[in-house]
């Protein structure tokens, strides 16, 4: 087993990794920026070291500082969490070169799956359905038109190096191709330093479904019950659940088998997620995330498996504790509580948390770095807490979610808590199987909708 792991992250995910380390008897080293001196990840780790200033480029993204901290403290591995350096192939390579185990797949795998075009090709080679479209990058508008002639319009032009909707254009007819190609390529070049784009059929009413996988170094793999992450806002997931409501058994099975076959073909190690779109009864590969995801607790709740502990075991050269298709029990939902005001365009909120009351009781899990008095800083992402509820049925999980959100109080700043309560009251959502445009299509943020009762307590004059 690993002896000492440096956690190259902050917030709730740093806590998550520190917890798993402690349960396995591994010493943990927290790194923190000067803005995070009072953060729980610093306080709860076995050791802590300040690596740079508040701005992430000088601290949580500062590769030399992190490697140097790992060497100083004698860490034999680094867990990157998610975000920051988690999918940075160069960072993984440097770790390997410095004889520090990077907790994740090999750097080549990260690089391969980080490029959308090569990832698509790898998926296709593993027999995983990909959206009909170009085989590789489209070098000019004419190649996009070829694709259009073959698979039909509307088309979606996407950046090879892309993510977050940048360098992405919907093209409804051949006449729109030239302008869209030029602007997408320019935007991709500006955002990622790589202007290459590719084209695929644009699917409209779609759901985002993904499969969590694990693999160890001896080639044993495991695929978990699928997660439905269709409730999004501008490609940012807000609520995830498992299993996906109302999905045909064949699609479920198909996605799990596809994910397992991709992982096997890649010689993957560690935890990863294979993401699909599901539309019109068919599923297609979108991308693979070669890291732990924010929503991993949903899977932990239904499967009863500690995914971070599995990551640590695999990184230690030990075998997985599960394999094949891991069964689930009941239904789990995760709510992301962000420091954003859903009534004002999700404007990020900062400042001190005054009253803090996380929910408790049966079937409730909270992963959060908050405490009363904690100051939410403007330097990092807005995720404050993840609330995960689990129950025997989806209906019971929805009720438990509403109950838990209702007693979740974070006063002093606006959060997505009321939005989640409004989502739970929405009829389409309750029925299950909403599309990714669910939030764009409705006004769930009206004043007074789903105000948690204790949050109101904290702000009596509001």
């Amino acid at each position, binding site marked *: 087993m690993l002896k000492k792991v440096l956690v190259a992250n902050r917030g709730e995910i740093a806590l998550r990794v520190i917890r798993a380390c402690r349960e396995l008897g591994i010493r943990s080293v927290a790194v923190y920026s*000067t803005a995070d*001196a*009072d953060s729980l990840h*610093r*306080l709860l780790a076995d*050791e*802590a*070291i*300040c*690596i*740079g*200033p508040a701005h992430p480029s000088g*601290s949580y993204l500062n590769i*030399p*500082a992190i*490697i*140097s*901290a790992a*060497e*100083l*403290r004698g860490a034999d591995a680094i867990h990157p969490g998610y975000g920051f350096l988690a999918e940075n192939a160069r960072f993984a390579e440097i770790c390997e070169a*410095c004889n520090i185990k990077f907790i994740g797949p090999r750097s080549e795998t990260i690089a391969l799956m980080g490029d959308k075009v090569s990832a698509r090709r790898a998926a296709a080679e593993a027999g995983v359905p990909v959206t009909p479209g170009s085989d590789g990058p489209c070098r000019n508008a004419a190649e996009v038109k070829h694709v259009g002639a073959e698979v039909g319009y509307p088309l979606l032009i996407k950046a090879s190096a892309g993510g977050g909707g940048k360098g992405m254009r919907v093209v409804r007819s051949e006449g729109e191709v030239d302008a869209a190609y030029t602007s997408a390529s320019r935007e991709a070049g500006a955002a990622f330093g790589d202007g290459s784009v590719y084209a695929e059929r644009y699917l409209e009413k779609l759901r985002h479904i993904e499969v969590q996988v694990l693999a160890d170094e001896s080639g044993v793999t495991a695929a978990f019950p699928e997660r439905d992450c269709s409730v999004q806002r501008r490609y940012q997931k807000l609520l995830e659940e498992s299993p996906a409501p109302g999905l045909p058994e064949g699609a479920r099975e198909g996605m799990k088998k596809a994910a397992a076959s991709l992982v096997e073909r890649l010689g993957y190690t560690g935890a990863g997620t294979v993401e699909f779109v599901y539309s019109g009864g068919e599923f297609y590969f979108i991308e693979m995330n070669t890291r732990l995801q924010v929503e991993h607790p949903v899977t932990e709740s239904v499967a009863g498996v500690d995914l971070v502990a599995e990551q640590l075991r695999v990184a230690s050269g030990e075998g997985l504790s599960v394999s094949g298709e891991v069964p689930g029990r009941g239904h789990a939902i995760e709510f992301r509580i962000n420091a954003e005001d859903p009534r004002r365009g999700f404007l990020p909120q900062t400042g*001190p948390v005054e009253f803090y009351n996380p929910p408790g009781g049966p079937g409730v899990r909270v992963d959060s770095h908050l*405490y*009363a*008095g*904690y*100051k939410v800083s403007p330097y990092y992402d807005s995720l404050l807490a993840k609330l995960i509820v689990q129950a025997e049925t989806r209906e019971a999980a929805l009720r438990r979610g509403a109950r838990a959100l209702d007693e979740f109080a974070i006063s002093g700043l606006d959060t997505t808590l009321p939005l989640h309560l409004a989502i739970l009251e929405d009829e389409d959502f309750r029925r299950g199987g909403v599309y990714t445009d669910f939030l764009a299509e409705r006004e769930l943020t009206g004043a007074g909708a789903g105000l948690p009762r204790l949050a109101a307590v904290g702000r009596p004059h509001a």
Partner: protein
Amino acid sequence: MNNGGEPKGEGKALPLDDVGRLVELLAASGVGEIRVRQGELEITVKAKPEATTLAAAPPPVGTTVEPLPHAALGSGTSSLEARAEAPGTNGLHAVRSPVVGTFYRAPAPGEGPYVEVGDTVRAGQTLCIVEAMKLMNEIPSDVSGEVVEVLAENSGGVEYDQPLFHIRPEA
């Protein structure tokens, strides 16, 4: 981190210039309180409670939460502790490490240290090396003055922002 004000004492007029300097010092320094007393004269300048680490600390409303974040450390690994000591080191300037790494007082093994306590240094003069990932970072002094104390241990690890030397700036 430092006090300013050389209070004049005796005189009839209030030493408001001195107070002003203390206030500026306080605001710039992030220190919680400055109190100066000389003879019959005493000047106290305190930061607004929520402006310091106090507000960052857990809840205690209205009482002294001050020690909390520092106390949290236990292990003594943080630059914050050194920083917390600073207010005691009157008039001294701390040169801090801009990187995480290993602290070396000399340019190479077997050679003498860049500086010794008592030396006078110029701003820009190399005080030490902090090695990070085999890279030798020469750390210059950011003030001119006298080296009063070496705060880190040779060949030991230092954090970002950790004080390495105390320098008494030239007047």
